[in-house]
């Protein structure tokens, strides 16, 4: 019984059906299923399947984004219960980590950033996506206010990349660099460039960005 309900939840993620995911999460809670099982064996497993299909080129960006939307809808249902349980046992409710994500000041390219945002979400991270052309002051204030674990920045344009270095230097001059891991990415961003500006890591694509975020959280 439980397995079939969890399979159904998984399937709503694979189908990218937000309404069905929300309804399935409600039904599962009402049926008394373990909330962590709903999260890990239902939602996250479904999201993981879609992520693998995307990586293999079997599904495309819309399916990935619809899946992320379905995940968010279901999470909205189970999060209060997760928070209640977290408060009871003192473990808190945060998922894998909180990432503040943005395309850096002066750059308006967002497809790569959006894919990273989606994969991080379906990979278990909480993501605050600030959008494109985001001033570094706003990125930092958002990270400070939300208590983010990771700041993620992307720049496709070479002439926008210097602002990522500015971000790190600003964090340093504010004495806040140690509070966040900073990961950078974008078409022209290399590991050497990331190291030169003092970032904690870079990734050449969205799948590796998710892996990097997980590694950074392990080190945190």
């Amino acid at each position, binding site marked *: 019984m439980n397995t079939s309900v969890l399979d159904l939840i998984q399937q709503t993620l694979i189908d990218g059906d937000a309404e069905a995911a929300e309804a399935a999460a409600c039904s599962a809670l009402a049926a008394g299923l373990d909330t962590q099982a709903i999260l890990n064996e239902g939602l996250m497993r479904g999201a993981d399947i879609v992520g693998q299909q995307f990586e293999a080129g079997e599904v495309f960006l819309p399916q990935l*984004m619809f899946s992320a939307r379905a995940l968010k809808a279901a999470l909205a249902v189970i999060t209060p219960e997760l928070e209640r349980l977290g408060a009871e046992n003192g473990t808190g409710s945060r998922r894998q980590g909180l990432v503040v994500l943005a395309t850096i000041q002066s750059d*308006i390219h967002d497809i790569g950033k959006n894919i990273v945002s989606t994969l991080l979400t379906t990979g278990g991270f909480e993501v605050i996506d600030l*959008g494109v052309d985001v001033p570094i002051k706003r990125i930092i204030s958002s990270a400070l206010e939300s208590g983010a674990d990771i700041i993620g920045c992307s720049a496709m344009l070479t*002439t926008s990349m210097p602002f990522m270095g500015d971000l790190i230097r600003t964090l340093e001059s504010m004495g806040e660099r140690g509070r966040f891991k900073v990961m950078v990415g974008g078409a022209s961003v290399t590991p050497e460039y990331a190291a030169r500006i003092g970032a904690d890591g870079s990734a050449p694509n969205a799948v590796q960005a998710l892996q990097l975020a997980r590694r950074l959280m392990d080190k945190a």
Partner: protein
Amino acid sequence: MDYLEILDRSNTGVYLSEENWDLEKVAMTCMQLVRQYDLKWDRQIPVPDDPALADRIFAAGFELAASIGAYNRSSERVLRFERSELETGLKQMKTSLSMGCAADERVLFPRKIMDTRPPLVWAGNPGAPHPEALFLPAVMSWAQEPIVDLITCGSLAEVDGREVRTGEALEISATRRELTYLHQALARVGRPGMGLLAAQSSVSELGDLAASHPHYLRPCDAHLIPMLNELKIDNRNIARAVNSIEYGMRNGGLYCAIAGGLGGDAPGCAVVSVASIILGNLTNRADYHILHPIHIRHVATSTREVLWVESVVLQAFARNAPAIIVADVYPKSGALTRELLYETAANAIAITVSGGHLEGCGSADGLLPNASGLEVRLMGEVGQAVSRQGVSLEQANRWVLKLLGKYEHVFQLPGGNPGVRFDQAYDLQTLQPLPEWARMYDNVKKELQEIGLKLRIFD
């Protein structure tokens, strides 16, 4: 349609969040249209010979443009257009566009499928950042090629040793210096009147405005007005377009729909590309169109998906709405690699036979200054041979498949196949390819001749 109407609709259209535009409008409508019009592709047919398919792609693209319109990201509003407005726009597209001046003037025109009139060759690698010291010799390396008709370039990533930052003061300096170098390059190769697509160092409107002067961008030149992914514009780019209209310069509408992106697989990308051109014709005030689909993982235009999209979109317009379309050649590989030459040839064959003009080469994905005049020469030679020989779509497909077999492995290389920087492929004193690079070119050219391309030698 007057551009004032575009400004009005940008401010009065229906409000919609960007996420809903992406998913509910673009992705959902595109998926439905791909099903409705039964749009499919075959990885073994990167150059399709199926007129009915090309017509359905056009019809689906028109339907997408008519049913959802375009999105202004700045105002978060949707610009809708009546079918009659889109149709009138298509009918009023330019059928002749003069670029450059005096003896170096060239006239762009809509090409047909299997057109025996050669494509114009627009040389350069927009988007590729260049160290200042390499900019002039790199541009000269392709401007000196007799087969080249028009010039474009990468961007200056630094000025006097300082990083250029978008939207800051040095963007102005970089853009003006880029234009100064371009005019120097044209003068030095004795072709001062060549038409330019330039101000590539201007990402924001700053540099563009600073360069709108006859000493820099002349009225006979062009600059880019990109449509953002997917089917989006913003006020900055509208400002660039309006500046160009007021000044009297040409607007090149740039469309980079993503294969594997919001439109889905290659057929959806083709539908988005068609809609982009139909809409960009009005929103971007485009005098001509630049087709540059991108592969979601591999970026390059030489992937099977993008080869197919470029081919079928060019055919769709050639059959249904003749337009001046320049298609980009952005190979995965960089200078001093055989694969760069194979990729360039495959792209040039597919574009030429399908009805496009040629622009490139944005070697090494256009991310590095690893491009040179030699691959541009090959691009032009292949384009001219294909048109001169009256190659069929079927024959072109066979050749492209053979070439894919020679280069497709580069997409599996973890670091790509970037080759070397321009100054490691060319002698900077003589501005000629180094012997190893010249030998590779000769050998690949022989291979192309062996498969049936009758390549001419240009002195």
